[in-house]
């Protein structure tokens, strides 16, 4: 195997000479995949100088550096809002960083940093408010005015993590609708959402980063941008490479830069990114020729509230793009969250720019790493789990017991939840003091008539926060704790949670 980045088929200079003369051969990744299928990768590699790629998806890790210029008298703006969306101001006097995910302090999830960026790019007037840290050299305390993109000295889109090589597809095995950053997920695996453009995906078309590195000129938000390094959480050895990119907002367009709200999740920015892949060697050509059938990702259960979500199966982008995938022998509707229409438009636009001699390829100053560990955040100190707060002396009843008997149990032990178990202590239902009150009011005698059979449970090693969220989302005040075999080993209630807060001095 040759050296990474070697220019054995053609050099960057040769490609740029051809672009200048107007005789470079450029194909979009979609076209190149087809061409390689019919003519073979060798012939395609010989024929084609540049393959253009594209993606257009929600990229939360995005934002913009803005410089407003100085007021008279000047202000050291340490707090700043744009259309009521807070921007980070603890950099020099009139520089701020506006994060795409920042939320409006008056409109919440409806409007945020992503929308402000779209408004700026569209030429709309944006309200600016700033509070000053008063010093001898910056005497002004407050500023309130309006700005447009044109008024700014610099408006630089600088996105710490964009253009994921591929992304997990999402489904939901729980029995309620989930609203996630992967969109609306119907209960019981009712649908699958995916992201990424598969065979058009910029970082999959040069998956070993032989041509993409620091200084690579790219299509960004409808204008020209540059790769400035690996993105945060860059994890290329697992096919999850990312990029950090920058570009001048003043050259961009709202066609390829859109503020968006993911329902009950937050605000984000849809970004169009396109990267030209110069076919410098055969390995790059083979990577660029990978089709949707050859690019795989995992279908992940977002019903599991852990960062280690289980994969239900592997799936190709071809299957995902077909609109249906098979899960547990059932056909489930699948659709993208990123726009494949716009992804194609990005690749087409970039191709046109190169053919028109307006865009040249650039040799990276430094290639990106092909291995980066992705470490979790370790929590130091002890974090309580369910087993630390649950009541272990569980009072249970049998389905054959009567209402009167359970009413006595509740009063005698001062409890609200009585799990109903079979002979082997396996959970079959639950009754609460409310159920018993209702049973008495309706003159019902047998537990069978009043117990809840579909019981919401907890596991002893689950994090407290997860169980608290579960109790509140089902509107219940407690849950039996069960082991792997569904034996009842405890009960956790909102009272236990309250006590925990008290112990920590929160109350």
């Amino acid at each position, binding site marked *: 195997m040759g050296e990474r980045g070697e220019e054995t088929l053609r050099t960057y200079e040769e490609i740029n000479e051809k672009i200048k003369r107007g005789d470079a051969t450029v194909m979009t990744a979609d076209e190149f995949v087809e061409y390689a299928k019919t003519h073979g990768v060798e012939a395609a590699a010989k024929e084609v100088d540049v393959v253009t790629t594209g993606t*257009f*998806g*929600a990229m939360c890790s995005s934002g913009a550096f803005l410089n407003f210029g100085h007021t008279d008298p000047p202000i050291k703006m340490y707090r700043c809002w744009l259309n009521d969306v807070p921007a980070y101001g603890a950099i020099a006097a009139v520089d701020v960083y506006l994060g795409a995910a920042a939320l409006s302090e008056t409109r919440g999830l409806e409007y945020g940093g992503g929308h402000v960026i779209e408004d700026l790019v569209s030429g709309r007037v944006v309200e600016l408010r700033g509070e000053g840290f008063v010093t001898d050299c910056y005497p002004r305390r407050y500023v309130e005015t309006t700005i447009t993109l044109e008024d700014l000295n610099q408006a630089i889109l600088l996105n710490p993590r964009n253009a994921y090589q591929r992304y997990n597809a999402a489904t939901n095995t729980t029995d309620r*609708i989930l*609203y996630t950053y992967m*969109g*609306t*997920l*119907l209960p019981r695996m*009712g*649908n*699958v*959402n995916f992201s990424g453009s598969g065979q058009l995906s910029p970082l999959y078309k040069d998956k070993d980063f032989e041509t993409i590195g620091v200084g690579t000129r790219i299509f960004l938000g409808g204008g020209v941008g540059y790769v400035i390094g690996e993105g945060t959480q860059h994890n290329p050895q697992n096919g999850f490479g990312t990029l950090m990119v920058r570009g001048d907002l003043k050259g961009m367009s709202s066609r390829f830069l*859109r*503020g*968006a*709200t*993911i*329902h*009950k999740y937050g605000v*984000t920015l*849809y970004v169009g990114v396109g990267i030209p892949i110069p076919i410098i060697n055969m390995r790059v050509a083979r990577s660029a020729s990978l089709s949707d059938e050859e690019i795989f990702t995992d279908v992940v259960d977002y019903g599991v509230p852990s960062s280690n979500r289980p994969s239900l199966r592997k799936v190709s982008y071809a299957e995902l793009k077909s*609109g249906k995938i098979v899960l547990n022998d059932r056909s489930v*509707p*699948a*659709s*993208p*969250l*990123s*726009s*494949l*229409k*716009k992804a*194609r438009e990005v690749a087409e636009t970039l191709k046109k720019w190169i053919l028109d001699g307006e865009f040249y390829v650039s040799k990276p100053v430094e290639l990106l790493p092909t291995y980066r560990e992705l470490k979790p955040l370790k929590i130091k100190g002890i974090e309580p789990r369910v087993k630390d707060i649950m009541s272990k002396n569980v009072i249970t009843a049998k389905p054959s017991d009567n209402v009167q008997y359970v009413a006595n149990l509740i009063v005698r032990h001062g409890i609200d939840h009585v799990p109903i178990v079979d002979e082997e202590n396996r959970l079959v239902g639950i009754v609460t003091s409310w159920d018993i009150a209702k049973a008495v009011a309706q003159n019902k005698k047998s537990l069978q008539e009043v117990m809840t059979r579909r019981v919401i449970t907890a596991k002893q090693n689950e994090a407290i926060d997860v169980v608290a969220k579960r109790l509140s989302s089902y509107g219940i005040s407690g849950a039996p704790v069960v082991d792997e075999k569904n034996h009842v080993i405890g009960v956790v209630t909102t009272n236990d949670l309250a006590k925990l807060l008290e112990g920590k001095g929160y109350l």
Partner: protein
Amino acid sequence: MRFRLIYNHKNLSKPILAEAILKTKVLINILEAKVTPTAGEIMVDVPVEGEKLREVIRFFEDAGVTVKEVAQILEIDMGRCMGCGACVSPCPTQALKLTKDWEIEFDEKKCVRCMICVDACPVKAIKFT
């Protein structure tokens, strides 16, 4: 075809819809119903055409129910729509689809007005009329 059946306080408590189904034998499907103590409105799909459809409409009108045709029930602002598919897979009846050119396509006949697509749309391009 979809219709809005508008009830007044006089006919509100009568089972007119059930009678209409029994009498005309048309499988009228309720898509949405709003009932207050003084008025009611039901949106229905009437899956027949021609003389049979006229018969159904006449039945309601004779019972004092105002019948209004619903021309368009969902509007997609194509200027805002990015052509992502965030509204497509959550649609329980597959009324929203992506074409092979990745454009959003809406099949009104399949829509049951659950409105899950309104919230699912990241750019708020979908409205119900």
